[in-house]
């Protein structure tokens, strides 16, 4: 029997997957061992659990309820700028949370635009902090994702169905009941589950807009147990609770969800014959665009004013962020490329599963575990930046794999036999065929990873001492010190860095790339 021939070796990928699994499960074990010594849940912990579930449910409900009319409008209207708007719906994914929060505060905050307008009519200003602020921010981030997912489901309805329904004389409500409602019934549970799962692990939004005993998520409670009380046992206990919650939800979300919302083909407009009221669609499209663009425009406008008198500490933080993002992207690619290569080569379900473990893990739980593990050996604060880069890499890994695995599979299937028949070594196939052929996907994945890391405000808050900060953390500190102009300047800088890093890497991957 001939040895089973493979153009690439599976072992580096298995090794990388084992590293990821060891990091996620090892920190988890460290947390779990620590949790046993603690004294059980306090009423505050239960309140955090309740708030976490409430805000995630409300965020999911509002995001999806608003996404349906927006997606419906986008599905049946063609207008100039439609492609740009749909592309814009993908942007919040790589938008730094702190930038969006600043923009939302400037629009919806106590001294924001809306409150100013209300003041003209003698009405009291809006209070954004607390549950509704958290939900508002989550809707801002997840309405676009939900819209893309629902739009995808809409576009998957074969055009023939609409033609047949039109031919039978269905219109308006009848068309909705016949075709669209069954589609929504199938698609919406998955979209709800995805948004719910995302909002469960929300940390930066709760940190900035929540807080206090009545608006604390579990992630935030972990952070507070850590930084305010330095109660590692309680942080560990909360981490275990968070983990059970995310794992259960991730399973449900995976079961329900089909597409991932990054797919192409969304720019196709369906030809329909049921007319419908253009005014309603126009309203929804404009409302969604304004809701998404206004906070960003506000950050840009206020940021330009603050840009030229930012304290030097902001630039220092920006340099640190660039370094962390570069290191994180490099680590992510070093993990993702071997894993994608291995998964593309056969049935390595466990390897793939390890790669997407990051979806169920919470960065603060990993951070807590790493803190517990590192503390006997070194001062965790001195390792704040490497730990941040590492955790960011693991969190971005699932998205990178979704991009890289299909490409690696395709290339291996197409060129694997030729490479084998030429007696190419596994390393040569990897460097001379796989890497050059995957350049566009590698660039896209690296761009996502760099932007996510650049904008991340999570583990760094757990580890950093006052001397050191990434740009998002520095902006948060400036906001806490009410230096709003410097914060706005920093936010504009962060926005430019994140989007710039994404654009540069994505473009770099496609530069002179052949078909």
């Amino acid at each position, binding site marked *: 029997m001939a040895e089973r*021939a493979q153009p690439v070796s599976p072992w580096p990928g298995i090794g990388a997957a084992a590293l990821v699994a060891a990091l996620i499960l090892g920190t988890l074990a460290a947390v779990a061992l620590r949790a046993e010594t603690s004294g059980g849940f306090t009423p505050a912990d239960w309140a955090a659990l309740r708030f976490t579930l409430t805000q995630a449910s409300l965020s999911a409900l509002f995001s999806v309820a608003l996404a349906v009319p927006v997606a419906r409008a986008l599905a049946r209207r063609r207008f100039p700028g439609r492609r740009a708007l749909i592309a814009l719906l993908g942007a919040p994914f790589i938008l730094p949370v702190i930038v969006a929060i600043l923009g939302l505060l400037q629009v919806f905050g106590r001294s924001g635009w809306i409150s100013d307008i209300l003041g003209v009519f003698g009405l009291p200003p809006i209070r954004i902090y607390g549950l509704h602020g958290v939900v508002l921010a989550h809707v801002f981030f997840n309405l676009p994702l939900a819209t893309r997912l629902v739009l995808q489901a809409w576009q998957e309805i074969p055009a023939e169905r609409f033609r047949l329904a039109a031919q039978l004389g269905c219109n308006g409500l009848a068309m909705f009941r016949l075709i669209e409602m069954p589609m929504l019934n199938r698609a919406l549970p998955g979209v709800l589950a995805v948004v719910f799962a995302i909002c469960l692990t929300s940390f930066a939004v709760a940190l900035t807009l929540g807080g206090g005993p009545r608006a604390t998520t579990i992630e935030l409670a972990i952070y507070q147990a850590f930084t305010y009380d330095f109660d590692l046992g309680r942080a560990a206990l909360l981490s275990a609770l968070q983990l059970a919650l995310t794992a259960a939800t991730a399973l449900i979300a995976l079961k329900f969800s089909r597409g991932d919302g990054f797919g192409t083909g969304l720019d196709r407009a369906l030809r329909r014959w049921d007319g419908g009221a253009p005014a309603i669609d126009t309203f929804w499209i404009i409302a969604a665009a304004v809701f998404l663009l206004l906070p960003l425009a506000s950050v840009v406008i206020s940021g330009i004013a603050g840009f030229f008198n930012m304290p030097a500490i902001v630039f220092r933080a920006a340099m640190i962020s660039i370094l962390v993002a570069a290191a994180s992207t490099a680590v992510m690619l070093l993990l993702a490329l071997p894993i994608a290569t291995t998964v593309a080569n056969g049935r390595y379900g466990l390897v793939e599963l390890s790669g997407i473990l990051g979806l169920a893990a919470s960065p603060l739980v990993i951070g807590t575990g790493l803190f517990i593990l590192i503390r006997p050996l070194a001062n965790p604060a001195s390792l704040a930046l490497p730990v941040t880069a590492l955790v960011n890499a693991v969190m971005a890994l699932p998205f990178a794999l979704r991009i890289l695995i299909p490409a690696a599979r395709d290339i291996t299937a*197409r060129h694997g036999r030729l490479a084998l*028949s*030429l*007696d*190419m070594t596994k390393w040569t196939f990897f460097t001379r065929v796989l890497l050059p052929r995957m350049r566009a996907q590698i660039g896209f994945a690296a761009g996502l990873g760099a932007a996510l890391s650049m904008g991340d405000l999570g583990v760094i808050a757990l580890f950093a001492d006052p001397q050191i900060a990434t740009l998002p953390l520095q902006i948060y500190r400036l906001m806490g010190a009410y230096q709003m102009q410097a914060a706005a300047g920093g936010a504009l800088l962060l926005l430019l860095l994140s989007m710039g890093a994404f654009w540069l890497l994505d473009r770099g991957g496609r530069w002179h790339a*052949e078909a």
Partner: protein
Amino acid sequence: MLKLDGCVIENGDFTLSADIEIKAGTSVAIIGPSGAGKSTLLETIAGFRDLKQGQIFWNGQQISNLLPGKRPMAMLFQDGNLFPHLTAEQNIALGLRPNGRLSQDEQTQVQSALDRVALQGLGARKPSELSGGQQSRVALARVLVQRRELLLLDEPFAALGPALKAEMLDLVAELVAEAQSTLLMVSHDPQDARRIADQTILVADENVHVPARTEELFENPPPSLRAYLG
């Protein structure tokens, strides 16, 4: 001599038995109805499929436990015979050194292979900048520098028009004659077999029939071939 000794190939729910010998230096066409296992047979000889039973010998040496790249054969597939991101020269060079840089002498070999397939001066082009026929010539140039004793063709010219395909087959015949190599060629077109193959193997009814002289086979076809030819 290529010998398939009591070979049984399994592919899903169908099996193929082969017990044949092919003399070195002959050109053999493999024909038969689609789905009968022509490509499966070729892939097994090339080492991309495992044998369920039996062994394959080349000149008395067992080769059925060797990896595809270690077998004494070059193969052209139905498609994907060139790497699209490498130039014609780089693609040809892979036949000499799949894993390294070429010596001066080897570079000369690549150039003369380009000359031999009438692609002088086109070595720096990528496959997308070449026509279908030119792409086939690059693949053949690589086969040329590989200097393997056996050449396996799995209908690599199927996408070309009739005249171009005939031209390529003539070129293959010339190259095979010059190198005195052995040719195994899958085809669904009796014209191809008549054009360049001295012998023809019929694959039908889960069985690889022994090679017969091409002319005689077509003049006096057995029932299963008659059914296929219609």
